[in-house]
């Protein structure tokens, strides 16, 4: 042991380093007066806390020294996930030949909805869900999407534009009959300039 507090404990309180370490991790509750009133114990607790926060600083420094991921590593990761695409349900389309069956994946429809919504300036689509008879040709579906908008833009107008573009896009590319398209503005975001520091790249 590197620091022998002896049988009297730290600051003659009878508490050992283990006890103090425990006390710190319990958030110093329930309060133990003997520890709280001992300058030696308080100094030790403060040192322990400082070393914890310094360790977090150390990891933050490691991160600053290597702010970019290695592109080869990243490429490998992205390739792996592209092989595990979550396509979702199959949404049927009318086949020109009755012996054939055609369908489009829910994932592809979502992609369509996102790109339609994102095409409105100042809007980013968050989650989007399709409810209803998606597995029937021409089934009635409801689209629910959450969007984030740039601050200081007329929110209602943006939401309406998103609704219209999503509707037009779905009409053009699917056979779904669209019931309602509910657009919820769930967030606002700030446009980062390309020159800004940080991780916007």
């Amino acid at each position, binding site marked *: 042991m590197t620091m022998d507090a002896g049988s009297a404990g730290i600051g003659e309180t009878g508490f050992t380093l283990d006890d103090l370490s425990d006390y710190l991790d319990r958030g110093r509750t329930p309060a133990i007066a003997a520890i709280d009133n001992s300058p030696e114990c308080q100094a030790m607790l403060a040192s322990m806390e400082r070393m914890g926060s310094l360790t977090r600083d150390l990891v933050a420094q490691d991160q600053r020294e290597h702010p970019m991921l290695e592109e080869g590593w990243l490429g490998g990761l992205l390739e*792996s996930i592209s092989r595990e695409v979550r396509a979702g349900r199959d949404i049927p389309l009318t086949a020109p030949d009755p012996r054939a069956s055609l369908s489009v994946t829910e994932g592809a429809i979502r992609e369509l909805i*996102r790109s339609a919504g994102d095409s409105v300036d100042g809007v980013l689509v968050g989650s989007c869900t399709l409810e209803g008879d998606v597995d029937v040709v021409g089934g009635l579906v409801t689209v629910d999407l959450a969007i984030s908008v740039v601050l200081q833009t007329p929110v209602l107008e943006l939401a309406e534009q998103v609704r219209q573009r999503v509707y037009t896009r779905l009409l053009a590319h699917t056979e779904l009959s669209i019931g309602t398209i509910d657009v919820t503005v769930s967030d606002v975001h700030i446009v980062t300039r390309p020159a800004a520091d940080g991780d916007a790249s």
Partner: protein
Amino acid sequence: MSLASAGDALLAQRSADGDAVAFEVLVRRHGPFLRAYAIRLTGSAADADDAVQEALITAWNQLHTLEDPSRVRSWLVSVVSRKATDQIRSRRASDELDDERAEDPGLGPEHRTESSSRLDALSAVLAHLPEGQRQCWVLKEVGGFSYEEIGERLGMSVVTVRGKLARARATVVKDMEAWR
């Protein structure tokens, strides 16, 4: 409108819906921290790279289970912790010479206090801790995990975790005295 300006919650939602581009933005944003954390935890850049890669593939497949998408960063930290500790355990099983790693003969205490900065000094002190102590320390102080969670991850009892943490604290506090 670029996804790089989007918040974590929106990116996590899109990723959960299968948007690989949004996921890539999340990975670029948080990957460097996850990697730095995993290196401190496993003590090896190669192991860390493997653990983070595996963790992110798991995350991609499980993102739809995340209830609060705004907490995606801490969720990713927990997934990385899981993969990194799995790796530590399997390495431990195949490496009976574990204790020798801990007794690295390299730098002595004198050298440590000559380090150019407080963080370098801490880095050296942590590198000289026995592995189990260092892992408990990093999981606790950086990962923010409880004794129970650490014990479960490292296959140790809560009592063992408590002891290792206390010993790690004693060593770090003592060796870093000069830097107070």
